């Protein structure tokens, strides 16, 4: 009796959060924003950096920055939007109710990531189409499958990273600052605009911790038609970043919950 009930509760919690979170707790999930994020921001961001690269005269620079920024635009719907979920919960005064509900936390939290994952997939897919059709980025025939896997894994890993930042935001008054930092930090530390090797070593290490870095590498490799062995390694790193991010976000959520329940208040966060 209890097992099916639990299963139903898990599924219901997942889907309810997947469907309602974009209208309630996730940031920038209005239809106009989502469409703008998918169709307009990638085009304008790629165009902007393509012109900068073109002016700088870096050999092969335009294709490099176009692909890097095509993947980096995923940050808007995955990180910036998702990290606001706990912040909005607190602002709406619903965090207390959430903490005392018996809902499965993993289903609750990960359900919120479903629509951002789909939006992220669409954003990168559209951006790659722009890259190939408008900016004439070389695309190895037969690598569509590798590209699809790379984009999907990147979307999942980035949403996981967004959830992690949402977990950190539990302890902050606002997540906007955090979202802004990681929205743009990726452009510097992920190899989106220039190879990571030009950065000082400590910054390279920081870059290696970002899922975006591995996502961009995987998409670049897929576009270049890299062998399966290389792709598997890169996919492994992307997946690892995503799993670690989600694990850490759950740990942060649990710690916050225990503290809030023990003190009977979330007001100090």
């Amino acid at each position, binding site marked *: 009796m209890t097992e099916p009930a639990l299963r139903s509760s898990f599924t219901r919690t997942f889907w309810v959060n997947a469907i309602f979170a974009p209208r309630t707790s996730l940031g*920038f999930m*209005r239809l*106009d*924003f989502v469409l*703008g*994020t998918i169709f*307009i*921001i990638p085009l*304008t*961001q790629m*165009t*902007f*950096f393509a*012109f*900068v*690269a*073109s*002016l*700088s*005269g*870096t050999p092969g*620079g335009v294709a490099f*920055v176009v692909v890097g920024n095509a993947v980096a635009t995923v940050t808007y719907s995955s990180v910036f939007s998702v990290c606001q979920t706990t912040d909005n919960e607190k602002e709406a005064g619903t965090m207390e109710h959430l903490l005392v509900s018996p809902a499965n936390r993993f289903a609750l939290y990960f359900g919120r990531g479903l629509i951002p994952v789909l939006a992220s997939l669409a954003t990168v897919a559209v951006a790659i189409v722009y890259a190939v059709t408008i900016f004439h980025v070389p695309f190895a025939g037969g690598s569509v499958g590798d590209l699809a896997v790379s984009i999907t894994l990147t979307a999942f890993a980035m949403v996981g990273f967004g959830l992690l930042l949402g977990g950190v935001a539990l302890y902050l008054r*606002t997540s*906007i*600052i955090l979202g*802004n*930092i990681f*929205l*743009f*930090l990726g*452009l*510097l530390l992920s190899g989106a*605009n*220039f190879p990571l090797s*030009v950065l000082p070593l400590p910054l390279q290490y920081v870059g290696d911790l970002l899922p975006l870095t591995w996502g961009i590498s995987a998409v670049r490799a897929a576009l270049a038609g890299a062998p399966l062995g290389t792709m598997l390694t890169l996919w492994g790193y992307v997946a690892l970043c995503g799993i670690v991010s989600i694990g850490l976000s759950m740990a942060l959520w649990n710690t916050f919950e225990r503290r809030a329940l023990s003190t009977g208040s979330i007001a100090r966060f």
Partner: protein
Amino acid sequence: MGASTYSRRVSLVAVLRLSVLTFLADPQWLVPSLIAPVIFGLVSYELFTGAGPWFVLYAILGAGMMSMWGQTLYGSGWATGQDRHLGTLEPTLTAPTPYVYVVLGRVIWNTVAGLFGGLIVFVVVAITYGHPIPLANPLEFLLMFVFVIVTLAAVGVVFAAAYVYTRYAGFVQNVGEFAFYIGTGCMFPVVLLPFWSNPISLVLPPTWALDALRYLAIPGYQGFGWGFWWDMVGAVGTTLLYLGIAASVFRRVERHVLEAGDLNDW
């Protein structure tokens, strides 16, 4: 001094003071408007490395302008949206002082804060560069930099006026941000853009002002063929035009609101 003039001056000073105090109470908002420009400045600096000493100015000017966009244009444009969010738009519009003076107070502070932002970007990129920044005319450069921010503020005031009629202020500013950077040529000369897009760029006052600034700062700069002085004429002309449009829209807004009795239609 007439009573209305006194009321307007008092309101302007009060709004300015409130903006400063709000900023000091919660200065974190300088961070979002600085993170992007500082990072864009560093990214473009890295991209321009090896392209010659003058190109560091492209990174500084572009990122500085982005910072000013963040603080001045975004801040001023969002002034109306913030009133709507806080529920203070209707009471402010029905106050005896024209709404434009309330917005003006915010714009003046945002302009000053924008200059701070531009200065911070300048310092960060200059430190990364590690050499003296090659400025041909430092004083004129500074004056032109201030003028660029005035042109941005003019766009911000028009946005602030127009946003009374729409709830899409956030959409326009967030989704249109890169389009504005491209259109005004903040990191590269507008002449690099396709010719058909030039008229669109020339509608924006910062396009003219930035081109003039580059003519002033970068020897051998190839911008619009008409040169520095016509850039200045264009910048002043379009800025005045924007301010005129803003004043007219604000008057219209106030009339509409008083006739309709509320702002729920928009």
